């Protein structure tokens, strides 16, 4: 039983990690959900197993550990709350950009493209909106700075 729980947790962690490394927001969300499930399964497996822990229903020495279950319940509730916030954020991101993708950081992108922000040539903000245009996210690109 505990071995199978451990394997389940390992599987969930593996799949979750794979999904988090993807570029699509919805996959990352599912990956995080799976990862937290893996952690919760691990919590479930951490206590002693046995009969239901109801006082009067049997020998207390053979009860399963209720604390582990309480931990798991708390963790599930917290994960649920944060996941819904994350879903709202992902939706907001979709409304703003029209894409279901993780946007790159501006500086990251400039390093990746081999360019660097040159003081004399480029105004950072104008460059920023240009970079966003190139990324295809032109749905509601801001006007280029104020200059």
């Amino acid at each position: 039983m505990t071995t199978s729980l451990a394997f389940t947790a390992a599987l969930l962690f593996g799949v979750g990690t794979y999904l988090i490394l993807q570029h699509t927001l919805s996959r990352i969300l599912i990956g995080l959900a799976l990862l937290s499930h893996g952690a919760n399964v691990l919590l479930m497996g951490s206590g002693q197993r046995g009969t239901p822990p109801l006082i009067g229903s049997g020998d207390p020495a053979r009860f399963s550990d209720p604390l582990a279950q309480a931990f798991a319940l708390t963790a599930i509730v917290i994960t649920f709350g944060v996941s819904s916030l994350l879903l709202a954020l992902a939706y907001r991101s979709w409304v703003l950009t029209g894409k279901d993708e993780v946007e790159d950081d501006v500086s990251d992108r400039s390093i990746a493209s081999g360019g660097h922000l040159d003081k004399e040539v480029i105004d950072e903000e104008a460059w920023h909106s240009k970079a966003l245009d190139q990324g295809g996210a032109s749905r509601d690109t801001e006007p280029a700075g104020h200059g």
Partner: protein
Amino acid sequence: MNALLPLPIVLPLLGAALSILVGRSRTAQRIIGIAILAAVTVISVVLLVAVDREGALASQAGGWEAPLGITLVADRLTTIMLTLGSVMLLGVLIFAIGQPGAERNHIGFQSVYLILAAGVSASFLTGDLFNLFVAFEMMLTASYVLLTLGGGREQVRSGMTYVVISLLASALFIAALALIYTATGTVNMADLAGKMDDLPPGLRSAFAVLLVVVFGIKAALFPLFFWLPDSYPTAPSAVTAVFAGLLTKVGVYAILRTQTLFFDEGSRPATLLLVLAGATMLVGVLGAIAQNDVKRILSFHIVSQIGYMIMGLGLFSVAGIAGAIFYIVHHIVVKTTLFLAGGLIEHIGGSSNLRRLGGMVRTAPFVAALFLIPALGLAGIPPLSGFVPKLALIEAGLVDDQHLIVAVSLVVSLLTLYSMVKIWSAVFWNPVTEDPEQETHVVSRLGGPPLMVLPTVALVALGLGVAFGAGPLLDLSGRAAADLLDPTTYITAVLG
């Protein structure tokens, strides 16, 4: 005295609820917020004095004896952090009220902010590893909301990174909890301190490293810091200030607490911590040098400064940890002040980009002074607040013959100074390089609305207070460090 222990958690939560009830009246909300945080500050100071005089205090919620019940513990480190935390929260709240933007436009700001305060207090006070997780979540959930207030494009992008990385850290934390509970059968920290010794040494080391990773993500330790400089600068500046001052330090506090309480000398990852500390300092400060935005530079400096705190811990000597604790005290005050000054700069100049700012030493000389004092303090120029903790850390490093980390910390100090000078000359000294028509609107002679300037002045004064009270503060840090390395008072306070 024990009855005071739950109040820093309960009062802000009550305040948050009240604040929603009176949501129509912004004035009532503000009175509640300030009154609650002022009360928490007073309670924290009382606790600090009491704990320093009489030793650690513990309270068992609902009368369930430890290790079964919910335990709250306050020792010297806890109360030092609690006091600083509540002072910063109060100062930043007043700044936020004075600042046009976040607080005025969002009805929920005050209550979310109070929940953040409750989460921070709970993280410091809890004597239970699982409740530490709950406290972290309370604090983080509030911070997700504060970070993405307004829902602008940049905020959503960086908020996403922040939430995902925090959730990942939480999942790892739960996994660590599950493994520790399986191995020892308890999550009470004082109880764990005893039971951890029965485990095989390999397992203990594995737990030690696992906890460093879990809290290292929150503390922005190398190589787990990438989320921080990306997400902090997009938040409203008052919010960034409180995040910068407190949230990562809660992670550092958790590392300090768990590494010293749970693990004995054989299983502490001392070398690993020193290597991470050096890398964190260097990478953080190099990142800061490469940036061109006040808030981003300051965010990278948070990372760099975390390295000093972990360096003190990695030495695992009373002198080293005392230096680290004093460094935390100095850092919380100075970093929050710098971000508030950065907020003033942004308010006056309309931007936090170095290329768009300039000449403020003439347009806003008062703000220039408010920035210069903490900036030099951060770099560790004597007699300002950064000097004594840095000296203490370096001395502790030399006593332990850790010459490499001492050398790194000195180089990083120099680079910190360079990067502060870069902000200074770009924002205050040099004329505006681009956009000569850029409007800098000076609202008053102070350089901003009084409610924004006043808390900044108060925190600058507090920073000077840290500098001039360095002797007693270092002694206090020394006593707190001795408590950490010999946790018998902590354990007897909880388990009796």
